[in-house]
């Protein structure tokens, strides 16, 4: 009981995120050093939704991993609310990873319940919250199935419920919808859009889909091609919320923004192919 009241009463404010002069080197097997990121500076204001786009291999996912505390920069600092990120911060950060990370030996229900169980929520409350979320992602009927029995899109929705049920003030998403079919993807994007507009959480979102980035985010950041990737452009999407995913596509401003983003990205994609 105590834990749950504590969790509701201390609803955390959305944090501000700063990347300061981030460099990330990877050492390959033969000892060569590959510098993926080289001097990345980026700020995500509290309560804003920032999408990061860039050619494959530019280090977008690495940036998210560093923010989640799973990885560390080779130099530079990642700060959340002026506090240096030194490890995972489950109370603040929710991370929807790109790869499939459900526990294969736990049912859908148990997987979604994990975070609440770690926080020692009472069993009845876990049950009602998890069932709510399972209905929300349309998986209630599958609550007793194991991940191996689900399609890729269904597993993704379990992961989404597992992350969002904890209501993290900072939400990181690494290509969260790329494995979903078009309809489900549209529905999930709409849901995320409604979460985003409130300003109650800070969201950093990595995608390769420019339309998705521009239609959902407040700001789109374009990363240059790696190695030595840096921030190439920062574009504010000055289109009012609430947004409608379908209507926005016919908005002339949306057209201008995606066109600009595409030009920026096109140069980088060409660069990475040129080598």
């Amino acid at each position, binding site marked *: 009981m105590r834990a749950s009241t504590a969790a509701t009463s201390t609803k955390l404010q959305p944090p501000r995120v700063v990347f300061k002069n981030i460099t990330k080197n990877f050492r390959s097997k033969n000892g060569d050093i590959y510098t993926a990121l080289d001097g990345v500076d980026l700020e995500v204001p509290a309560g804003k939704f920032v999408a990061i786009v860039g050619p494959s291999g530019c280090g977008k996912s690495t940036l998210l991993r560093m923010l*989640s505390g*799973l990885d560390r920069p080779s130099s530079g600092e990642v700060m959340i609310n002026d506090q240096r990120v030194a490890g*995972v911060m*489950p*109370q603040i*950060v*929710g*991370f929807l*990873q790109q*790869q499939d*990370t459900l*526990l*294969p*030996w*736990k049912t859908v229900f148990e997987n979604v319940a*994990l*975070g609440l169980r*770690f*926080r020692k929520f009472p069993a009845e409350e876990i049950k009602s919250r998890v069932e709510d979320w399972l209905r929300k992602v*349309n998986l209630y*009927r*599958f609550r007793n*199935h*194991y*991940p*191996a*029995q689900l*399609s890729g*899109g*269904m597993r993704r929705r379990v992961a989404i419920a*597992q992350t969002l049920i*904890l209501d993290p003030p900072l939400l990181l998403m690494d290509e969260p919808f790329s494995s979903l*079919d078009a*309809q*489900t993807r549209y529905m999930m994007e709409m849901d995320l859009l409604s979460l985003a507009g409130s300003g109650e959480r800070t969201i950093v979102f990595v995608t390769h889909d420019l339309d998705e980035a521009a239609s959902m985010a407040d700001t789109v950041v374009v990363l240059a091609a790696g190695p030595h990737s840096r921030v190439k452009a920062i574009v504010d999407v000055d289109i009012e919320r609430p947004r409608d995913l379908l209507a926005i596509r016919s908005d002339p401003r949306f057209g201008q923004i995606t066109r600009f983003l595409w030009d920026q990205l096109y140069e980088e994609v060409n660069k990475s192919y040129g080598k």
Partner: protein
Amino acid sequence: MASEQVSNISVAQKQESGESKYLSVHILRLGLLLVFLALWELGARTGFIDTYFYSSPSRIIETLIQQFSSGAIWKHLAATMQAAIFGLIYGFIAGAALGWLAARFKTLSQIVEPVMTLFNSVPRIVIAPMIIMWLGIGIASKIAVAFILVFVVLFFAVYTGIREVNKDLIDRIRLLGGNERDIILNVYVPSVAAWIFSSLRLTVGFAFTGGIVGEYMASSRGLGYMLNFAQNSQNADLMLSTVVLIMAIIMLIFALLGRLEARALIWREDR
């Protein structure tokens, strides 16, 4: 959702056709076995097959009935069971413990792993004569042979289960707010259990192999001893009936273990 219904239907269909295929394979197997036994019996009755060397299905059954009705078989069965079960228990505990310690302490793994790998790559049964020389012809040497075989399998099941654990899952537990205990309970334990369960049949098979080989080499009781006795007295009926009995026991145990494994690893299957 429409897509879910569709996928459900296709899963159901797959299951149905899978079951009927399974059944027909079973019938085919049984048929082939019966044909083989009938030809054997026929050959033996017409004198085409020398029963002195090759026995016959009816003679094997007769011998088995006689063994059980005279009660002579029980002490041998008990001896083999005892050797296998104790070898299994001790080997299980010791192998699992060493596997866990080696996965936990790097120095220990550097010492132990090469030895165990060597042990795993040579036919371990070559150690049996040595053990019999040291421990004598009593039950201890049989338990020890079964122990050695089981020990190595369990060591690798636990050691690999811990070492090859999916690191992404550990990250995931941390991200969701789990502590070290949560990681052990939710990732390591199920991961190791999966390795143990999937090598359970191998392990139990080895326990019987160890016990029976030990008995065969030097003993005065046990199914292995009966094989040895039958060989020395050129008694094909006794020899083959013992082989059939051993096979029947192992198959029964494997069927039970198969159920247990399917139950424990239900999450691996596509329903």
